[in-house]
């Protein structure tokens, strides 16, 4: 077997963007499969920082990955390689002598660094940002296969990303738990979940957790319709309500709430939960509390579903390299894992289709979507 497959001898793995449960399972599957092919494996520390800023790593910016490095990590959250959402090589943050920061394009230099280290192909695990970077590297001649990762499930061309199931499972569990507090105090409980500009996590956890209203970015909301649901419940003797809000939700005619816009980093959403809570409290006169689930959704051990998907993706990425299918991303198209061109993936984000069966189900159950 050794030496087969596009004359590959050595591949690198990188994890980029926010961490998601399942990253380590992908790494393990990719490493074990690659070792089967007779290839050598290295991991790049913190996105591409291990190659771009090797001086930061006293033990080296590349980690040699052998069987023992990936033993027993399938069930672990996080990533053994580290990750960053501040290291886009196309807009790399550089600090000038006066302390100010600017962005420079280091992608060509990065492609060269791969060659310098004798790396023949790259498996890039990440969300839309990391996969767009991977696409640039592919266009500059690097052999790249992408693996779709994001708890937000907002990537096109794959039915689902790994990390999503774990996030939804935990969000649902939190909504279940918060029912007791909401009911004990006859309160409204507004629960803000991650998801960026897509409402997947909110919609799925809200449905599974029996929320009374779900606000998602795809449907700009009018809180009066939510207030009506709350008043109707009140009249029927149900003195509490649960409202799940996606971090990217926004009022009809309004914009999403943004808390940060740092250099070299994507816009950070947040604050909408508190806003919705304050307005609903005024409109209904009900005491209201907010819980922001935040990073809790990306922490912890992956669910069985996410583990299996991650292992399949990791193995498929190595298969793609062997078969010479490059510049592509592995994607789930049940029951198959397919390869799709990277360029297609990052054109736009995948949002919740308003005519989907899940949305219809939510409506059929009488849950308000704020419209």
């Amino acid at each position: 077997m050794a030496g087969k497959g596009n004359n590959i001898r050595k591949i690198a793995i990188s994890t980029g963007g926010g961490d998601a449960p399942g990253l380590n399972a992908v790494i393990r599957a990719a490493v074990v499969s690659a070792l089967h092919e007779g290839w050598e494996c290295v991991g790049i520390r913190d996105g591409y920082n291990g190659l771009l800023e090797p001086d930061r790593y006293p033990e080296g910016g590349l980690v040699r990955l052998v069987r023992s490095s990936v033993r027993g990590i399938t069930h672990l959250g996080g990533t053994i390689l580290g990750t960053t959402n501040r290291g886009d090589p196309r807009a790399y943050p550089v600090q000038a002598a006066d302390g100010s920061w600017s962005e420079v394009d280091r992608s060509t230099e990065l492609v060269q660094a791969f060659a310098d280290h004798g790396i023949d192909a790259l498996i890039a695990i990440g969300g839309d940002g990391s996969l767009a970077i991977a696409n640039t590297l592919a266009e500059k001649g690097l052999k790249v296969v992408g693996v779709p990762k994001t708890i937000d499930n907002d990537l096109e061309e794959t039915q689902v990303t790994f990390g999503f199931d774990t996030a939804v499972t935990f969000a649902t569990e939190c909504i279940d738990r918060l029912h007791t507090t909401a009911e004990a105090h006859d309160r409204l409980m507004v629960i803000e979940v991650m998801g960026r500009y897509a409402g997947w996590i909110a919609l799925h956890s809200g449905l599974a957790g029996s929320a009374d209203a779900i606000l998602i970015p795809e449907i700009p909301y009018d809180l009066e319709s939510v207030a009506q649901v709350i008043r109707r419940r009140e009249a029927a003797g149900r003195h509490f309500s649960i409202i799940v809000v996606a971090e990217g939700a926004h009022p009809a005619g309004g914009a999403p709430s943004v808390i940060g816009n740092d250099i070299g980093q994507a816009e950070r959403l947040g604050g909408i939960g508190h806003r919705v809570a304050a307005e609903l409290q005024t409109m209904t006169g009900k005491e209201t509390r907010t819980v922001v689930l935040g990073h809790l959704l990306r922490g912890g051990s992956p669910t069985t579903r996410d583990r299996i998907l991650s292992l399949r993706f990791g193995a498929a990425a190595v298969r793609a390299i062997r078969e010479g299918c490059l510049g592509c991303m592995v994607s789930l198209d049940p029951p198959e894992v397919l390869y799709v061109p990277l360029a297609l993936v990052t054109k736009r984000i995948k949002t919740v289709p308003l005519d989907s069966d899940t949305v219809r189900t939510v409506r059929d159950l009488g849950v308000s979507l704020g419209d």
Partner: protein
Amino acid sequence: MKSTIGILTGGGDVPGLNPAIRAVTIRALREGHRVVGIRRGWGGLVDIVPDKDADNSRNIQFLTEDIVDKAGRTGGTFLHSSRTRPSTLPREFVPPHLQAKYQDDVNDMTDDVLKNLDFLGIDCLIPIGGDDTLSYGAHLHERGVPVVAIPKTMDNDVPGTDYCIGFSTCVTRTIELTHKLRTSAGSHERFLVIEVFGRYAGYTALLPSMAGAAGRCVIPEHPFDLERLTELMVYDRNRNPSNYSVVLVSEGAQISGDSDMSFEGEEADMFGHRKLGGIGDRVANGLKQLSPKYNNGRRVNVVSQRLGYLVRSGNPDALDSIAPMAFGNLALDLVTSGKSGRLVSVHDGRYRSVPMEAIIGTKKVVDVEKYYDTERMRPKYKEFNGLPLFIMTSDA
């Protein structure tokens, strides 16, 4: 003598309230007493219309084994809760049938509460609550109502007892959720800053830290130096092979030099308490800004998370299923033997009761001298021999 027992839950909900209601109710019914559940804490006693033809189903509920058996397995309180204090009731809370009588901005409705207790035929009252709820119970006791109180609060800050219902589940959840966040902090090599409820007491940060949830904790009992905390967090991070470090921040923690704790807003409840919150984000920003000074000029980013209501939501853990059972039965022992004005409690690992006055005028807080290392910003780990099961929470 067969009597009618009133039971209510006030203040914030915690897991373990329903098991306590269950314990009291089942034994009381089997011994031939009647149990009236009063809804929404003291609120139900304020809103009752003392007319036998009136519909008081929003305010009271006669309890049966069926009702409490099912509810007894769950978190929250099926009787609902409130922070209503009948002795300082704002006009907007005065029920319609009494609005002509109470027209001040703030009213003492205790006379009507006493009338309502008479109307319901309640012989003795078992309030379950924190020091705010129970202080009104003590007030009623002074006015001649037989009262036996059960302490609950996730903060564990009720004086006179080492343990309050809800504290264990809070610690359990805090440990569990903090560990969950480690993967994000580790992946990004950041500081992990976690704010927890706890009001003016540091137990909810101290005990999870002792149990290994965090390397450092800052508590209300000792204002802390942010520079020193940054130095310790950088030190922990550098020593950790995964390159991150964790601090638990009590919502009432205070940066030294600050004139007050961090509050969410100006609004105060009927007990004069404002809602704490926001210190976690302030610590997170401070750590981020100061980190270059202790980390060779490199800034360390932060994952900042408020655990908020998650730590007291959901079903009770083992201890919060067991302790409420004991508290409920102890309360009933006292009631049936004609004793009142008592708070059931745990002292040095043993159940007992103390006079209700124990809760008035003081707050239980962490004994910093004994249990908190101010220099290293974490619990002291020495001299466990002979300590009760719940170390660090004894006020004796």
